[in-house]
């Protein structure tokens, strides 16, 4: 039992605790518990950053004897910040739901913590079966978060979300089982080693199929164009906290999976298919941005902007160089921070005006100046202004893409232009201009609770944009190892082919 | 008069098959719930006969035990099944199986 196990299982314990206590005090309890979890997770930073390329807090005990499933967990520089991000966002989501959720309060917070349990587990699992279990665990609370506390078309959205993700994860399960039949273990580290040393000898086609099975599961979650259509629906219908967790954390599970599993295990297939995948990513970047530009609904706009931003993540990943991969991972965090904040802010507006249509707003800056400033900073972060977080990630991704294939960078950089268009246009239509009467009547400035919820993210935007090194160096070290692994494998195969 | 030839085992099994098929036919042809239920009993009896015949052939008692259990289950089934038929009749005022078809989408 080490600190990581504590961080993984505390949310599960909190989930059970919340079910036991009376509903009236569930808000306070959820907040306290999630803050405790967050504080505990901060303890992970020290040991991991000291040795970011190796797994820290490793725990490897048998879980099920036959088949050989192990409880194998551990984190390195790649997963560290994603876990911290998840544990940070949970208390913030508790805060923003304080008044927003008025019925079945207890269950809401319970599901939020169950979601945290699954997500942290996903980022910590080193056994493929364990990973799959956590991966599926996250589905359940999100299904209910959207389905119970969502807007009008919530059932359609949540079923779509669920089926989409299930379709992908079934493929992944098949691939995991195939790997088990080949290697006799679900352990990711062992499997990677076996694959690298050629002791599991996959045929060319087998590697492609396995890669695709994993990749499609992850790509749905990312979501990579054209597998993204569940996202706008899910976001629009989800309650604010659901949107935040979905965008900031759950989408990262897909990106993380690609980097963690697809690249080291099937480097040959990854390289072979990289042009195609990069093509889809590029289409996603541009189409996502252009479609976002014409959305009348704020949440849909942000959702499509996510499609665009996550295209960058995929593009950087498949550039196969240090800059691209570092940028991709950094961009995962950035997107989590800035889009999470955007969804929060849109949620704040919704709580006041009860509409997500951009048309329903205008001149909010006059009546809610603080909200306007925070929204501006978040907007700027989202469109990649320097000294704010997204810039570093986008720059690295584009630089990596330019090294891999300059044309990729050209097309991807177009997306940067479009991102400015849709975000600024939305900001103008929502916050600037004269204030209509009903907006003046309903919209008030941000209150202290909301400020406390969004402030950490704003601070992170500036922090991650200026002092990037502290965040980036552990990621870089872990990525260097992943690239090393996948490169070694490709070279070995090439040698075998000769 | 020479003793008649002994009865072959096949005769018992064929009888069992005939009775079973009669049960099936009854189940398919009859429209009264109670008669259909009786057809099921007939099928059970046919199978019981097979069990007893095999038991004789193999010189083992186990077949009898099986038959015994079938009887017990049949008794339980009759109790519950007839109670259900009573309820159906109470609710629908008919025993005609074709009119009891609310179990569809």
């Amino acid at each position: 039992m080490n600190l990581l196990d504590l961080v993984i299982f505390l949310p599960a314990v909190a989930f059970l605790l919340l079910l036991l206590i009376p509903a009236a005090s569930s808000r306070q309890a959820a907040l306290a518990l999630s803050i405790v979890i967050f504080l505990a997770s901060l303890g992970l930073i020290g040991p991991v950053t000291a040795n970011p390329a190796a797994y820290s807090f490793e725990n490897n005990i048998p879980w099920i004897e036959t088949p050989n499933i192990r409880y194998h967990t551990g984190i390195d520089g790649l997963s560290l910040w994603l876990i911290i991000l998840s544990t940070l966002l949970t208390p913030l989501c508790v805060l923003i739901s304080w008044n927003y959720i008025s019925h079945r309060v207890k269950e809401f917070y319970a599901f939020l913590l169950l979601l945290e349990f699954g997500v942290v587990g996903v980022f910590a699992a080193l056994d493929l079966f364990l990973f799959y279990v956590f991966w599926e665990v996250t589905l359940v609370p999100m299904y209910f978060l959207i389905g119970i506390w969502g807007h009008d078309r919530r059932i359609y959205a949540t079923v779509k979300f669920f089926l989409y993700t299930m379709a992908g994860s079934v493929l992944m399960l098949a691939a995991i089982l195939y790997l088990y039949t080949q290697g006799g273990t679900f352990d990711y580290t062992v499997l990677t080693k076996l694959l690298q040393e050629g002791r599991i000898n996959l045929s060319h086609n087998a590697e492609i199929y396995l890669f695709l099975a994993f990749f499609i599961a992850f790509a749905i979650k990312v979501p990579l164009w054209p597998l993204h259509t569940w996202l706008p629906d899910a976001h629009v219908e989800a309650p604010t906290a659901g949107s935040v967790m979905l965008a900031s954390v759950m989408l990262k599970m897909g990106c993380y999976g690609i980097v963690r599993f697809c690249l080291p295990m099937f480097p040959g297939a990854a390289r072979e298919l990289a042009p195609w995948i990069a093509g889809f990513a590029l289409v996603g970047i541009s189409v996502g941005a252009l479609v976002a530009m014409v959305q009348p609904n704020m949440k849909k706009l942000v959702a499509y902007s996510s499609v665009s931003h996550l295209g960058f993540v995929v593009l950087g990943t498949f550039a196969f160089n240090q800059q691209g991969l570092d940028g991709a991972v950094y961009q995962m965090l950035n997107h989590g921070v800035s889009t999470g904040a955007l969804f929060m802010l849109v949620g704040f507006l919704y709580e006041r005006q009860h509409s997500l249509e951009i048309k329903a707003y205008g001149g909010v800056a006059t009546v809610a100046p603080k909200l306007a400033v925070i929204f501006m900073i978040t907007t700027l972060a989202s469109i990649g202004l320097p000294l704010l977080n997204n810039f570093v990630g986008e720059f690295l991704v584009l630089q990596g893409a330019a090294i891999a294939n300059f044309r990729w960078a050209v097309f991807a950089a177009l997306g940067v232009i479009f991102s400015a268009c849709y975000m600024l246009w939305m900001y103008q239509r929502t916050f600037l201009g004269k204030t209509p009467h009903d907006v003046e009547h309903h919209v008030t400035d941000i209150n202290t609770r909301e400020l406390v919820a969004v402030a950490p993210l704003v601070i992170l935007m500036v922090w991650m944009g200026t002092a990037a090194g502290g965040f980036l160096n552990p990621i870089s070290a872990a990525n260097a190892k992943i690239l090393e692994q996948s490169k070694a494998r490709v070279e070995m195969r090439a040698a075998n082919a000769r | 008069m020479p003793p008649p030839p002994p009865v072959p085992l096949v005769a018992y099994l064929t009888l069992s098959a005939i009775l079973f098929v009669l049960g099936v036919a009854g189940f398919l042809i009859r429209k009264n719930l109670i008669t259909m239920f009786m057809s099921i009993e007939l099928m059970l009896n046919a199978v019981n006969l097979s069990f007893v015949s095999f038991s004789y052939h193999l010189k083992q008692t186990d077949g009898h035990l099986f038959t015994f259990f079938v009887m017990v289950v049949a008794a339980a089934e009759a109790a519950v099944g007839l109670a259900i038929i009573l309820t159906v009749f109470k609710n629908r005022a008919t025993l005609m199986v074709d009119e009891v078809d609310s179990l569809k989408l």
Partner: protein
Amino acid sequence: MDPILFAIFAGIAVVCGIVMVTQRHPIASALSLIGVMGSLAVLYLLLGAEFIAAAQVIVYAGAIMVLFLFVIMLLNAGAEPKPLRSSYLAGFLGVPMVLALMGLLGYLVKRSFPLDVTVRFGDFTGGSAKAVGDALFRKYLLPFEVTSVLVLIAILGAVVLARKEMD
């Protein structure tokens, strides 16, 4: 003696079976089913199954069929009317399917057992009440207890359903 007895009671069983299936009125069906069961009891005896034969008469022909008759009386079920909506499959394919089933079963039975495997009364004595009871309370004790639970549940189920009927 055996072949004659077999011929008589097998004949009764088949005839009663046919009557049961063809009769429109449930009472007639029930009575002919009792006939089938009774003749089967005799056949059980011929196969050396004394206990089962007795149980057949007591449990089946006695208890269960009385229950049936009772329900028929209670519901005052009359003969079924002639024209009825029905399953197309059962209507058109019913008879061919039954015949095919008969043919297949007969063929299988014939293929499995040669004609010289015969049944002689008294060759098998494992069907006495002692032998059956011995097996029941030793080898099959657990299943026996389980069936007792099953019967209990069935009683409860019947009571619940019947009580629902009352209100």
